[in-house]
Structures are given as C-alpha cells and as structure tokens.
C-alpha cells in the first residue's frame, strides 16, 4: 500500500530545540506511525542524530519522549494521522 506524503509539524523543546534552533519544524513525508516520523525527523534535522535520536535505530535515545495528542509515548508503533500534534522533549525528571 502506498502512503501519501503528508505535512506534519513537530514542536521541539529543550535540547532538541537548541540543537535545531527552532521551536517548530514541518516535515512532509509518507508517515503512518511515530517510528516513521522519527526517521523523517532524523533526515530533516541531522543535528538530532546522536544526542536525541539514535541514527542506527532511527528512534529516541533514552531520556527523550514524544507527546502525541497530549499523550506521552515512547512507542514507535503509535499511529499518526494528518493533524496529529507531536512534541519532542526530554523525559521530565524534576525541576
């Protein structure tokens, strides 16, 4: 099945935001799951490779988490749909 490319916005907080230099980036990619989006994010923002995203696995390093439609998740099979709100942030451990 061919997945049509869709535009997704990802909001970055903390270290990811500083590395990329933006609060929000837009990615146009054929994406069905959060795992797919992480790969697309890696391609769009190579600054995240290493500190935030494992370039081999195409997935989050320990200590980072996505928030999809207000739900925290590190599950790459989380389905996405056009209009999904996606945030990338360090896992919260105090202040």
């Amino acid at each position, binding site marked *: 099945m061919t997945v049509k490319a869709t535009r997704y916005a990802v909001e970055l907080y*903390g270290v990811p935001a*500083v590395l990329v230099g933006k609060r929000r980036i837009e990615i146009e990619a054929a994406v069905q799951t959060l795992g797919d989006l992480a790969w697309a994010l890696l391609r769009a923002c190579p600054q995240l490779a290493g500190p935030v995203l494992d370039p081999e696995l195409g997935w989050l390093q320990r200590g980072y988490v996505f928030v999809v439609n207000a739900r925290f998740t590190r599950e790459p099979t989380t389905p996405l749909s056009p209009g999904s709100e996606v945030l990338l942030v*360090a896992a919260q451990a105090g202040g």
Partner: protein
Amino acid sequence: MNAVHNQVLVVDLSTGQTKPFPIPQEVSSLLLGGAGLAAWLLLHFAPPRVDPWAPENPFIVATGPFIGTGITTASKLAIATTSPQTGFIGDSLTSSYLALVLRRTGFDALVILGQAPRWSVLVVENHQAYLRPADDLLGQDPEATAAALRNELGRDVRVAAIGRAGERLVRYAAVVNDGRLAGRTGPGAVLGAKRLKAIAVRGTGRFPPVANPAGVTAAARRLAARSLGPETAKYRELGTVANLAFFSRLGVLPTRNFQAGSFPAAEALAGEYLTLHQRADRQACAACTVGCEHHFRTTDAGPEVTVRLEYETLFALGSLCGIEDPNTVLRAAALCDYYGMDAISAGGTVAWAMECVERGIPLPGDPADWPRFGDGLSLLRTLEAIGERRGPLGDLLAEGSRRAAEIVGQGSQAWAMHVKGLELPGYHPKNLRAMALGFAITPRGACHNRTSAYEVDFSEQAGNPFEQLARATAQSEDRAAILDTLPICKFLRHCFDDFFVEAAELVRLVTGLPFDANELQRTGERIVTLKKLFNLRQGWTRADDTLPDRLLGPDGIEPAELETLIAAYYRIRGWTPDGQVPATRLHDLGLASLLVHAPSGS
C-alpha cells in the same frame, strides 16, 4: 554496617555543651542514613507537639552512607526540623562540599537543640565544637557570612549560613551553603529562632570505610559514565529552566497565582532563550559529574547580576507573578539568594498578594507599595520588604500565604496556594492526577520532589485507573526517600534501568548489608512512614491532606476524584481510611522498636 560512624554530635545551644550520641545499630540498618536518619533523629529528640520556634525544636543535619565513596552526586545533606510554615516535618536537602567535610568529622549527623543566649556561629572541628559570637556577622548575606568565616577559620572550613530573612524569622527562610539553598519548609527560620547565624565545619578525618572498596569503585565508575549520557543532557545543556516553555505548552505552568496553566509570554522566559542569550556559566556540586547548575546574567541597563536559576525559581518569580522580563526574574532570584529565602514560597506568597490587589482586597501599608501582576518593580520591592520584614506589608508576607490569608481574610484563603502551609511548586495539577495526589499527601506539604509524581502523569501511565496511579505515586515516593537517604541526586534516576535493583547492589557494596530491591523499597516506605508519624504526633488530621480550594473543581481535580485517589493511597500504605498508621503496620515495617514517643492515634 559499613560506611557509617554510628555516632551523632548533639549540641545544646542554650548551654554550649556537646555530647556524642550513639546511633542504634538497628536504626542504621533499617534506615541507612540521610533523610531516613534525619527523620528518626527528629522523632527521637523532639518532644511531642513541639513548637517550631521553641528551643526544644531540634535542627538535624544528616549525612548518608554514599557520601565520600566516589559515587557521583552523593555529596548531599538532609535537614530535618519542625517547619515554621507547616508545623509538621520540615525536611530539605542541600548539596556540595559541606556534606563531605561533615562526613569527615567522625559524625553521621548534627543534632542542634536549644537557643543560644546571643547570636552565635556553631563551629565544628572534627570531634570538637564550640560557639563563636556572631554579632559581627549579623545583617550579612549568606555568601558574605561564609566568606568571612572561611577567611577567619581556614579555607578548608565549609559553612551553612542564614541571611537577613532567617535573622528576621521569615517563615520560609533558607539555609545556604556552597551557593545552594535548603529553602523549602523554612529551615533558615528555625536557625534564626535559635540565634544561630551559621554552622562552620572542618572535617579532616577519614571517610568511614565501605564494605567492598573495589566493587564500589567499579560501580561508581559505571554510574559516572551513565551520568554523562542522554538521560541527563537536559540538565547539562540547559538546566531545569528547560521545563518552562514545555510546561506552558502542556497547560501545567502555574501562571498568575494558578489562575491559568499557560503563560502567553512563556517564550520570553523560556530556558532555550535564556541559554542562548543570557547564560553566564555552568557549575557542579562537589563530586558531581552532571553539572546542572546554570548561571544567567542580566542584559538590561541596570547593574549586572549573575545568578543560578532553576525552573522552580523561574516559574515562581516569573509566570506565577505574571512577570515577562527575564532580567526582572534574575534580579528577583538574586534577592531571594541575598536574603536567604525559598523562592517558591516567596513567589507564591507575593502572587497571593498580587491577586488580593487585583480583586480589590486591601493589604496593609501604602497602596503604592502593593505588588501587582506583571509589575516587576513591585515584585522586587516586595521581596526586599519581606526579606527585611520591613513595614506592615513585609511583615505580613513574611508569614507565608496561609497565615497572611488568615490575617487579611475577606475570602483570600481561597487563593492562598499552599498545602499544609507550604506553597505549591511549578506544576499546575489540572490534568496531572498523580501530582495532585502527591501534593495532597506528602508529609512536608505541597512538594514535587518528595514524590516526583508528575513523572507518572508525564508518561504512558497517565491514563491508568486511580488505584494504579496511587500505587505508582507511592512507589515514586519510596524511591525519592531512598535517593534522599543514600544519597544520590534525583537527576540520576533515569540512569538506572531498574532503580531499586541497581541501587540495592550499590547499598550492598557500600554497607555490606544484604539488601535486595524489595528491602530497599521497604526502607523507602519506612522513611515515608516515619515522616508521617512525626506529623501525626504534631496533630495532623485527615483534613490536612487536601489541595487549595481553587484546585478542587474544574480548574484542578474534582474533590471526589481526589478523595478516591487519597483513599487508594492510604490503602496501599496500609493506613486506616482516616490516614492513621496502625500499630500492626509499624511492626510489619520493623519500626515499632525504633520509636520512643509513640504518636497519638497509632
């Protein structure tokens, strides 16, 4: 048990006498040290229903077994006393070199009793202690006090001091050492009541030996390597100020005295912005590989200020007071440090006053001096008035939001944002069910650190049934108690795959005690229970475990939901439905034999 001295130094300020007090072996093996030892010593030395201001109120400073072992981030001290804010247990942590030197005096803890006949400094030099008159230090800020004492006594001396807020009995005054503040619950005010300006410590002895030196060295090396990984990058690269913009986006950033959960000007205060434009340097506590302490400098036209800034200070003196200018927040943070005041309670109390003004409720003093949301100059002016207890307004707000609201009345208790008298930290509990529970039940009052329950909300567990949320909150509270006891910095907790399993291995290597994960978690529960027992003895009732009115309803959590969560939490703890600790539970936890003064109701 290895890695302990098994001895406490008891100082009576009223007489100047000191004596060693042997720690019962059972206490060390059941509680390990740190926050657990401090809670037990408080229960042991405090008379029932002790008044926070009374000379009989003990002031405890306790070390833990990991200090000086080479385990990263372990240079921490646990403080326990009766809080002038809550009347219940006041426990705070502080970090850095003071922990190392105190550990080398040959004592595991200090117990300070009585009230000095005149303002004094307690000087501890290994096994000796004496009082030095402090008249020449009165009015000085904590940093200047420490500098003067180190200049006089030697550079190897480390100092914990109070500022003018502590001298003037501001109820949320802090104890300051090595640039760190133990501020929550007002321990600096207790030192002020004891007329103790500072504690100066020189310790040149050996650290108590660990059970397995080679094993500890190897484990410490592994933990240090993990402490430099992505789990702590947030703290190294930005510090906790990274929370602010994200919290605003989630709607959990307390704004304008918790009237909102998002701050329209959040980007102006965002940690990312501060890091790029105003960061001065980064420092670390003694024996810490993380280095979370970020200093920021002002960039406006006024005199330059450079100050350490944490998220809690940033929210409390920023969004909570409607302040959009980061330079104002930095100046306010510097004032709290100068006077030696807890920034959360200072900001929370000023925000309460700002809402009074917004609602037309008159405050004492000249209306021109009243603080107003978004008015940075009025914030700075009010903090100075509090730190000095200057004028009727400063005197009122030095009492904290609960007492100030009781004095002013006119319904203002409804927006005094505290639990048990302790102002709420920077987590708006709307949509944070576990954190709402944590705020309500924590013995020290509204606190994020003693449960870290927000982690449950900020995870895939957030949607779980209430029973599971309550269980996760209790487990998180047990873990926090262990971290404060060993001690290990909470910022390392994500560096463990299974905290209790791996920490138990460290405990075995350091102490030689046959700890496993279950026993370590039970130790955490013991410590939480001890704190609860102290509160029971101080007159705690079921009504004390609640949230401010504003947060009970659509802007927080429905009262019935909170009651369900609290009931589940008590059940999980093995407590009665009205929150009492049954004698059978004390026996189950091995605590019954440790208690001299049984709390009423147990």
